[in-house]
């Protein structure tokens, strides 16, 4: 129990050192190695995720600017189209105005022509009638004269 034995101490020291070597080789190194490997894996995945996120953000920015420019373009196109439509509208209106004026003019002329013709006709008829009436009067005058005579 209490007897100190030199060889015993030496053997124990050798044993512990051998055990140290064995444990280091078979237990500590593999386990810590695998833990470190996992840590590296996780770190790598985290880095990847970060990179992906950054990429995604960049893409988002790109798309946003693209959408913005597309919106601007669309607005411009619409504005242009509106302007064009406005121009066409006024042009059409003008044309219609001119057309209607022409039509009215023609109608007026027509009416005038017809009036003229009607007047002339009436005039000729009136002249005929007057002639007839005069002839009648003359005839009746003759008969009256003949009668009174």
């Amino acid at each position, binding site marked *: *129990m*209490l*007897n*100190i*034995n030199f*060889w*015993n*101490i*030496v*053997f*124990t*020291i050798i*044993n*512990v*050192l*051998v*055990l*140290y070597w*064995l*444990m*280091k080789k*078979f*237990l*500590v*190194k*593999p*386990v*810590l190695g*695998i*833990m470190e*490997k*996992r840590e590296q*894996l996780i770190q790598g995945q985290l880095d990847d995720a970060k990179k992906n996120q950054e990429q995604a953000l960049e893409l988002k920015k790109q798309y946003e600017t693209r959408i913005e420019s597309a919106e601007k373009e669309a607005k411009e196109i619409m504005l242009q189209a509106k302007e064009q439509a406005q121009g066409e509208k006024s042009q059409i209106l003008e044309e219609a105005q001119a057309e209607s004026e022409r039509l009215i003019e023609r109608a007026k002329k027509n009416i005038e022509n017809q009036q003229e013709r009607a007047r002339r006709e009436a005039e000729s008829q009136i002249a005929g009638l007057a002639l007839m009436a005069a002839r009648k009067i003359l005839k009746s005058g003759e008969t009256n004269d003949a009668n009174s005579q």
Partner: protein
Amino acid sequence: MDAFVESLLEELNCEVVFTIPIFGGIPVMESVVVTWIIMAVLTLLSIVLVRNLEVENVGRKQLMLEAAIGGLYQFFDGCVGRHGRRYIPYLITAALYIGLANLIGLFGFKPPTKDLNVTIALALISIILIEVAGFRQKGLKGFLKSFAQPIAIMLPINILELFIRPLSLCMRLFGNVLGSFVVMELIKLLVPAVVPVAFSLYFDIFDGLIQAYVFVFLTSLFVGEALE
């Protein structure tokens, strides 16, 4: 009673298992043989447990192993600091060895730590580790200077510490294991059944693990101190 004392003494004595017939016979003690058994058990367990370790899809067995070794590593890392990382495998080995040595009484072997020679050997390794760590960290000049820290008047006390530290480490472990062993034998003599179980939980398992913890904890603290 005499028979009991005799059997107790016989239990306490470390037998010479066999003698190597060179240099006039080198006695190989029981504790050395039990240490061999412990080494074999630890090595076989390590080989079996460390086989098929995976980086992903970790099994329950590997999780426990990693928690144990990782926990020990973290614990010692906190004690010895950044510069002492290279000494951690030894500290883990010492923790496993002393822990299993204290517990092996449960399996019917005589705990090697009950032999003073084993604890002397462990304490010698510890003090050599502590001083070598300090020497490697500070160089010869810094190492010699560290004996006069924090003030020159501490020099004799620091030199005394060189001997006190291993002595206290060795005697604490030896005394605790021996004491709990004797107490357990006495309890077993008084009440042979049931009651020793409860006491065995304390004296064999709890005290054994605590002493292993204290030994490696103090060693790592001293190493950390030497590295500062």
